[in-house]
């Protein structure tokens, strides 16, 4: 698949490969990482501890991972997709038994030195598995029910394991990414229409049954659903986050209050200000203009990926790159929608910026695969 002859001396190969890396993409990723570290420095009240310094270490490790993943020939990655997917599902199952509980959900496995969140890697593993599947499946069979059921199962398995942690937000993200890859692979529109209608139907039935004789869930479960959709019912819990987050964004205005000047975040009004709500700090301190520039960076990343995917001759590579870029885009939009109060708080971090190791490593791994495809794939 690659035009580089592997029999050449390693030094020559390496130089060739490095020359083909998309350095603009690397620069964008690095910029976003630096912005993230700055935000963490700011929310700690102008201090590298406790968040910025560990994050910088992770960024450095992340880039090492990115380059290693990018330089290993793509067919090696292709050949280990099946064991990789199985191993990740195994970790998710393991997580259900030995996972560490935090805030009422088991999302972490404690590996001694590091805590690890398998659901982050699960997203990448799922994209790889689906890309492999569709690269092997003849195009004519893509919409055949049997050949749709198999990838659907590949998506549902991690979804169910993650959603039962319970981490419904990440679960839904996994489902959406899986759906997008299947959509890109050309599965017939009708399947998606049926699934969407079915989901709407089930949700509507459950909600409409409230207070009737055939009520499906218990009263307290409806209470929780209602608070989920309308956080103002619980002003000291979920509603508190949103109220404070909106105030922070709004007080940023067009130009922001200036670096280290955000009162909402500095004065501890914001919960989770270093993880899921980190964008709020940026919005307060840098204002709308820089927020839009930040979002534009993500859009450019997605554009670079899409162009690379469409130029790539190989189906595995195309689907892989498009899947990963969709994942990044979806995560960004979900996070921003969440902190601006458009959707309920579901615990999705902002890629490359939020504090957190598992998410950072998984993303760097994903971008490594993207670069890999850019380096190795034959082009049109």
């Amino acid at each position: 698949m690659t035009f580089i002859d592997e029999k050449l001396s390693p030094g020559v190969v390496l130089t060739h490969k490095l020359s083909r890396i998309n350095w603009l993409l690397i620069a964008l990723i690095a910029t976003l990482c630096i912005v993230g570290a700055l935000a963490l420095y700011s929310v700690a009240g102008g201090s590298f501890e406790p968040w910025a310094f560990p994050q910088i270490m992770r960024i450095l490790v992340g880039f090492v991972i990115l380059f290693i993943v990018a330089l290993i020939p793509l067919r090696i990655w292709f050949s280990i997709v099946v064991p990789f997917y199985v191993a990740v599902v195994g970790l998710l199952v393991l997580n259900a038994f030995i996972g560490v509980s935090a805030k009422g959900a088991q999302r972490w496995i404690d590996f001694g030195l590091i805590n690890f969140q398998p659901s982050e890697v699960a997203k990448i593993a799922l994209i790889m598995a689906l890309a492999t599947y569709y690269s092997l499946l003849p195009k004519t069979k893509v919409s055949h029910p049997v050949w749709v059921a198999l990838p659907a199962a590949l998506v549902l398995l991690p979804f169910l394991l993650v959603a039962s942690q319970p981490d419904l937000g990440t679960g839904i993200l996994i489902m959406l990414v899986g759906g997008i890859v299947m959509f890109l692979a050309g599965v017939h529109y009708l399947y998606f229409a049926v699934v969407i209608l079915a989901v709407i139907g089930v949700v509507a039935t459950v909600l409409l049954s409230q207070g009737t004789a055939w009520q499906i869930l218990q009263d307290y479960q409806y209470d929780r659903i209602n608070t989920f959709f309308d956080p103002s019912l619980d002003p000291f819990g979920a509603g508190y986050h949103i109220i404070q987050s909106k105030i922070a964004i709004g007080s940023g205005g067009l130009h922001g209050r200036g670096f280290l000047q955000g009162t909402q975040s500095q004065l501890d009004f914001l919960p989770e200000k270093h993880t899921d709500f980190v964008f709020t700090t940026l919005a307060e301190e840098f204002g709308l203009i820089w927020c839009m520039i930040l979002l534009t960076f993500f859009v450019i990343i997605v554009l670079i990926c899409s162009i690379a995917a469409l130029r790539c001759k190989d189906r595995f590579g195309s689907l892989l790159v498009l899947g990963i870029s969709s994942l990044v885009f979806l995560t960004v939009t979900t996070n921003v929608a969440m902190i601006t109060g458009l959707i309920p708080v579901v615990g999705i971090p902002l890629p490359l910026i939020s504090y957190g190791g598992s998410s950072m490593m998984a993303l760097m791994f994903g971008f490594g695969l993207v670069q890999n495809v850019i380096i190795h794939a034959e082009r049109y």
Partner: protein
Amino acid sequence: MFSMRPEINLGRRNLSRRAFVLGTAQLGALAVISSRLYYLHVTESEALADLSERNRISIRLLIPERGLIVDRNGTLLAANEKQYRILMAGAEIGDAAATLEKLSRIVPLPPENRAKLLQDISTRREHIPTVIVEEASWEQVASVSVNAPSLPGVEAVVGDRRIYPMGADLAHLVGYVGRVSSKEMNDPLSRDPLLQVPDFRVGKTGVERHLDKTLRGRAGHRRIEVNASGRVMRKLGVTGAQHGPSLQLTVDSWHQNFAAARLSGETASGVVMNVQNGDILAMVSVPSFDPNKLASKISQEEFDQLLNDERRPLFNRPTQGIYPPGSTFKMITALAALESGVVTPDEVITCTGSLEAADRLFHCWKSGGHGEVDLQTSLSQSCDVYYYELGQRVGIEKINKVARRFGIGERPQFPMPSLSSGLFPTRDWKLLQHGQQWVIGDTLNAAIGQGFVLASALQLTIMTARIATGRQVEPRLVLAQHGQRVTDEPFKPLPVADTHLDLIRAGMVSVVNQPLGTAYMSRTADESFIIAGKTGTSQVRAISSRERTSGIIRNEDLPFEKRDHALFCCYAPSHAPRYAATVIVEHGGSGSAKAAPLARDLIMWAQYGGIPPLQMYPSEVRDEVREQLLNLKLRGIPPAEPTTGRQRV
């Protein structure tokens, strides 16, 4: 897979088309979040920045009033008293240290307290205020209000303090409230924001603890806008607090007071119950303590004193204290024997003072023996040998089955925390607990309520009520909740033959009303209120054979902690039972001399609705009773009700 396939061109066009659709959708999502950001940043910016900059939204919890607890007559058992507090709320204070400095001119604030307060203020979330002064005087409140502009965030509010008008009488039953412990605060099952309120009190023991969530009510909240100096600018919305509903208990505080006074001086528990509906009329544990002290301020010294007191005043004896029931258990052994047909009521067993089994001598309490004993005599004179024999015949499994039917070894259904289930031993239990095989001696000891058997005063009362009615009586403590009275539902009949129960009841009547009965001195002189009961004297120590030969040491000569427990359980009137009562006096000596007269007075109070009239006592004890009743330190005379039967000395 890496080779060109014929269909790949088709696929590629398809992929481009799909990617285009996806890209369009992504653009749409981008447009939505961008416009949302624009809306918050620009359109709403002024309003939101305003909130952030000068006027901050502040959410204040509204504390619900804790539900009252009243007795069956409506007398207050737990109430709330208003008191002024001075609070300081988190984020609105500019310079907390400076404010505290100013505040210290109004109220005394020692420097060491100030550091602690400052730390509290800085670590708490905004809507949770810090209590600066718990009980402020009116003058202090007035000067805080006058100086409000220079004291940002400081507020004088009216709060509640829990008081217990009945004091020590109902300390164990009603319980008391206390500060939220860190364990309670971090309980994932209860995320009530009220628990975060620093001076909030939750039930710690008794009914206050068991029904805490009901009594607590639900927090409301008030959203207000405050300016930088902490002044309230605008009220944005209020959700009122839901006050805790009142709770009516089945106890009668006058009866309770009488029982507590009558038992005072002892280390004892007493229970009086209505056997028809299970209502607990009185349940006392002596010695007691003042719950008012524990609920508000008690010095460490005083608390340690309560904790380390040998007589354990904090311990709720009627539900937690378990003792060998001794002879009060003999009814169960007799029922088990009758039910399995190993004895007839008329069969005579000869008591020589001891019985030999498995190479050991088992002694009757009467060393000379009772001679010829039938069922009724065995109960009225409490012959041990008769029950050793019955125990041997019927076996431990059968006794266990019957005991459980009457609630021995079973956890009572009762709305109190820390209920003891007592114990009725089985072969498996002994093997598991002691790693030893069951021996016949264990059965014999269990047959007379000794050995491993343990029961609480509440359990013995339930047992007596079940014998008296033949129904599965369960105790009841809550009479009305949310203003709604609980319904009286008749108890299910017990699977026990009435003829057998009648024999046992006749035996219990003879215990109190036959001249040779062990509780003859505790009978009444009221034909319409004949007491039926059973004495029990349970051994705390083993009596050695050397002691038996040299003469058993009299109880009074023993050190206190080695003296026998005195028990008496009874019901009355015998022809149509209404009440059951149990008294257990720890190390009280003998059941007939110590416990029976106490239980008699407690159950008679229920009948006469006040101090029992002297003429209802047999003439030979009247002088003694008059002396005892006159010396009682009662809270007062219960209010007269226009019913007959309420007579007083």
